[in-house]
């Protein structure tokens, strides 16, 4: 029996491990290697340049701009998205108070639940194109059309360097909230009703319910949402590529590392430098995920 065990286990593991190594691990290793070459992607020849590509990043102004933007995204986007999603989820699930011993959402919550989820169904490119029209500075733009009508416009959402990044963040929040409403709703559904009922009998209002019951019992889910959103904050490539003016403009005001990688690789054909950026992004994302999990670790409430 013992003799047959290892072949049995190996037989099961071999296929997924080989697939994983071939399509995930090896490309990663190769990306690390390419990051240390001057490969331009158009011939099999390249020179090994050590850490030159990384050193070049230090005085690359657009790289630092992109990093700063990730910092802003990381601070603002998860916080706003989670706050809005929590409020909505609470209203949809518990906000209506107790009906026949069951906690219920506000009136029409079934409808809202579906509506909030709509943006999640759209491809990010489609969202980019839609908001391109929403933000357009001419009369056919949704917001500026109205503002121009009132004689207040136009507001250059994407063309004003002070506004552009915030406009992008607004779109990301708009797009993300629906998913987290569903996520938090699921979390809330697993909170036992009797805890709410006990709190209600003790005279807790909606606000107290939210802060003393829902929030602590939802902490794990919120933490997960934070990691998710944080990682999303390190991406944002697609929406910037589609929505921002002048490739992460104006003047680099919305650029992100993903976009810099794309520009380096596919516009300028410096694949070595692009890979170096990719490696940096890899470590940034990894560090963030590890840090968040460490910092937010907290005594979980066992139910």
């Amino acid at each position, binding site marked *: 029996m013992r003799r047959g065990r290892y072949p049995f286990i190996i037989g099961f593991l071999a296929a997924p491990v080989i697939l994983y190594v071939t399509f995930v691990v090896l490309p990663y290793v190769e990306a690390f290697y390419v990051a240390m070459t001057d490969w331009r992607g158009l011939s099999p020849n390249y020179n090994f340049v050590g850490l030159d590509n990384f050193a070049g990043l230090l005085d690359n102004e657009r790289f630092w701009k992109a990093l700063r933007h990730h910092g802003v995204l990381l601070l603002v986007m998860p916080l706003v998205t989670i706050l809005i999603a929590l409020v909505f989820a609470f209203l949809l699930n518990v906000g209506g108070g107790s009906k026949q011993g069951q906690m219920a959402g506000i009136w029409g919550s079934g409808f809202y639940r579906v509506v909030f989820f709509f943006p999640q169904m759209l491809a990010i490119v489609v969202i980019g194109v839609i908001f391109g029209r929403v933000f357009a500075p001419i009369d056919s733009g949704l917001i500026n059309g109205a503002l121009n009508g009132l004689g207040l416009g136009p507001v250059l959402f994407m063309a004003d360097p002070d506004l552009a990044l915030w406009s992008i963040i607004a779109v990301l929040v708009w797009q993300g909230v629906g998913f987290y409403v569903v996520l938090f709703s699921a979390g809330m559904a697993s909170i036992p009703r009797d805890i709410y009922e006990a709190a209600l009998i003790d005279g807790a209002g909606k606000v107290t319910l939210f802060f003393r019951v829902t929030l602590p019992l939802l902490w794990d889910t919120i933490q997960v949402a934070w990691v*998710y959103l944080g990682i999303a904050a390190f991406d944002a490539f697609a929406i910037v590529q589609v929505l921002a003016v002048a490739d992460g403009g104006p003047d680099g005001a919305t650029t992100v590392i993903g976009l810099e990688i794309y520009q380096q690789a596919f516009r300028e054909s410096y694949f070595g430098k692009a890979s170096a950026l990719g490696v940096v992004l890899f470590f940034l994302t990894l560090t963030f995920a590890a840090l968040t999990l460490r910092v937010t670790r907290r005594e979980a409430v066992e139910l």
Partner: protein
Amino acid sequence: MSGTPDNPSTDAPSAVTRRTLLGRATVAGLLAVPSAGLLSACLGGGDDTQDQAEGTKSADNPLGVKEDAPLEVVIFNGGLGTKYATDVHIPSYKAKFPKAEVKFSQTEEIATQLQPRFSSNTPPDMVNNAGSKLMDMGALVQAGQASDLTDLFDAPSLDIAGQKVKDTLLPGAIEQGTFNGKPYVLNYAYTVYGLWYDGALFKSKGWAVPKTWAEFTALCDQIKAAGMTPFGYAGANAAYYQYLVILTSAAKIGGTDVLKNIDNLEAGAWTNDAVKKAAEAWAGIGAKYSDKAFLGQKHTEVQLQQNQGKVAFYPSGSWLENEQAKDTPSTFQYAVMPLPSVTGSDKLPSTAIFAAAGEMYFAASKGKNPRGAQEYLRHMLSKEGAKKFTELTKVMTVVKGATDGLTISPGFTSGAALATAAGANAFSYRWADWYKKLDDECRSATNELMFSGGTADKFCERMQKAADAVKNDSSIQKFKR
């Protein structure tokens, strides 16, 4: 690369546990390293080159094409379509070499399709490197992937008796495809640049084409009074139409060496007085005769507004009429004028224009039939090949006089007249293709100059700083002309 994690509908929401979520978060993290990892998958093909076909050279076959060697041709399918290749140039080649099989394919994304083939040294023979996903030509040349075309340009023309190919081309056509002294690319289409307007509208309003800057601003005042925006360009994605105009003015003020110095990254090339004067003049147009809202608009949006009679002048190249064909009302007649002289002492006449050969075609040096590819280019450069190309695409070619007598459209006629009037006073620059970093910087600097409180001094200094940075960056490949 979606900004948020996967659609959760694969699990019932209540079944989402912390562990599966964390698992997914890790996966999302791995995916967040954009395709850099995948890119490299194409690295490391063999170094071995393919066997290349060679025939004997003769008066009838000056490039030594092997008559039965197959030829692979890849054409970018964009604004020009592919009909000119399948209906004109390929039949022309096959008529000369009936035994040769010509394999034709077309794509909308040249780099996506061909990059892996170049990096594994198995490229097609003749490539039309164009479109928004084109391959960096400088990098291709550096990698030794393009054939030296000197033999082609020295060969006799296919159907213009007694002339070498190079003698049949417009001035600057070969230079445009030259890298560090050798021609590697044929730039086939000839594009003239200027300010485009609605000829019919100008005629009905009695607006005359201005030749001096004073006439230009006076006309802009009139246009403004008529309720139109006199001038506009698309800041969101086409600021390079505007910096092209600024530098055209600079060349007219100070002579074409101004542009040559910029190309060669000379010290002080951008802070030159001519550049400063041109920037100042155009900043004035931006401040007085344009609209800040153009900053957030794409070229198609601004061009549409011109078709709707909301914008009078628009800087662009001669592809404009074709590009807008669908949206142009029948009453709108495209016409183009050269940039008005900025000063009374401009070195070049007011008829001087920016004109460049574009639309790249090259013979892959590591293809199976590089001689056939050059021969194919020779067929494109025949008078017949060029004329039929223009008839199909409404685009001029670099072949001299190939379109004489063709009446295609008002814009085409106007563009051709512009080129004729300019004569030898047609010039261009190369820096924007050579150094993409500078291109990006100049787009931003131009938007700043025109609409966001920039000044001519700031513009020049900013560009000089960027040019110096490129010059001092040893990791960027340099070119000279």
